[in-house]
C-alpha cells in the first residue's frame, strides 16, 4: 500500500489508543491483518437512544489513496436505523462520501457514526423502509430499533411480543433473522408478514 496511507493509519492507531473515548470504552479499533488495509471498529450505542447498551461492530477498509479518499465503512452488526441498510450495513453519511476531508481521521469517523446513531436523518435515508417507519410510526420504530439492539448488539431491552411473533414464523420454518426482518418491515403485523413471506 502507498507510503502515506500506511504511515497515517499507524499514527492514527496510536492516537486512537490514547484517546479519552477508548478509556471510556465508547469506541474501539483493532487490526484485522498485518497490511493495515482492514480494521475493525466498535462503537457503543449512545445513551438515551434505542441503541443504548449495544456494541456495534464496523468493517473499515482503508483505500490505497487514503487519506485523500475516505475509508470504506460498513456496519457488521445488524442495526435498525434510517441511514444504515438493515440488509447490508451500508451507511449514508456525508463525510464518508462527498464531504470527506483529508484532515479527518478514523477517530472522527467513529465519533461521527456515534453521533449519527443519536441523530438520524430520515430525509436522507439509506434504508427507505426504516426511514418511513421512523417518520410515520416513531414509537414502533423505537421498539424495533431496541429489539434489534437486544438481538444483535447485546442491548438490554427484550420485547415478549416481538419474540412471540418471531417464534410463530420460526415454527413455520422461517429463519430467525428473516422472520425478524420481515416483521420489522411490516410494522410487526404477523398476518402481513406471513403474507409477504409466502406470497
Amino acid at each position, binding site marked *: 500500500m502507498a507510503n502515506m496511507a500506511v504511515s497515517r493509519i499507524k499514527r492514527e492507531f496510536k492516537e486512537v489508543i490514547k484517546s479519552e473515548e477508548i478509556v471510556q470504552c465508547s469506541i474501539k479499533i483493532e487490526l484485522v491483518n498485518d497490511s493495515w488495509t482492514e480494521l475493525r471498529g466498535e462503537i457503543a450505542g449512545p445513551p438515551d437512544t434505542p441503541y443504548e447498551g449495544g456494541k456495534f461492530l464496523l468493517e473499515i477498509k482503508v483505500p490505497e489513496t487514503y487519506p*485523500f479518499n475516505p475509508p470504506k465503512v460498513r456496519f457488521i452488526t445488524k442495526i435498525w436505523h434510517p441511514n444504515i441498510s438493515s440488509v447490508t450495513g451500508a451507511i449514508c453519511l456525508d463525510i464518508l462520501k462527498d464531504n470527506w476531508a483529508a484532515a479527518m481521521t478514523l477517530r472522527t469517523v467513529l465519533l461521527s457514526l456515534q453521533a449519527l446513531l443519536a441523530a438520524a436523518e430520515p430525509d436522507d435515508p439509506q434504508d427507505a423502509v426504516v426511514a418511513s417507519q421512523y417518520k410515520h410510526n416513531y414509537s414502533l420504530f423505537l421498539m424495533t430499533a431496541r429489539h434489534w439492539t437486544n438481538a444483535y448488539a447485546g442491548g438490554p431491552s427484550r420485547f415478549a411480543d416481538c419474540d412471540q411473533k418471531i417464534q410463530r414464523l420460526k415454527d413455520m420454518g422461517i429463519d430467525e433473522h428473516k422472520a425478524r426482518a420481515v416483521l420489522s418491515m411490516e410494522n410487526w403485523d404477523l398476518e402481513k408478514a406471513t403474507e409477504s413471506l409466502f406470497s
Partner: protein
Amino acid sequence: MKVKIKSWMGVATWRWIANDENCGICRMSFENCCPECSLPGDDCPLVWGACSHCFHMHCIVKWLNSQPNSQQCPMCRQNWKFNIQ
C-alpha cells in the same frame, strides 16, 4: 595572548514556524518531511493557506488534485488559496 583555532564545530538549529505541530494531512510533525520524502527542509517545504492552515506542500497539492470539483482546505473547508508569504 594569541589564540589559535585548531578546530571548530558548527551548530545550528532551524524550525518551520507553523501554527500547528503536525500536518493535518499526513499527520507527521512539521519537523519532519511528508511520508513521500526523506529529508526535511527546502525539498519538502511547508505552505500556508489564506485561512492560515499549514501543510506540507506535497500533501496539500495531492489533496487539491484529488478534489476535482472543489478546492477546499481539508481542515476548515474554506476555499483554498495559497498564502504567498
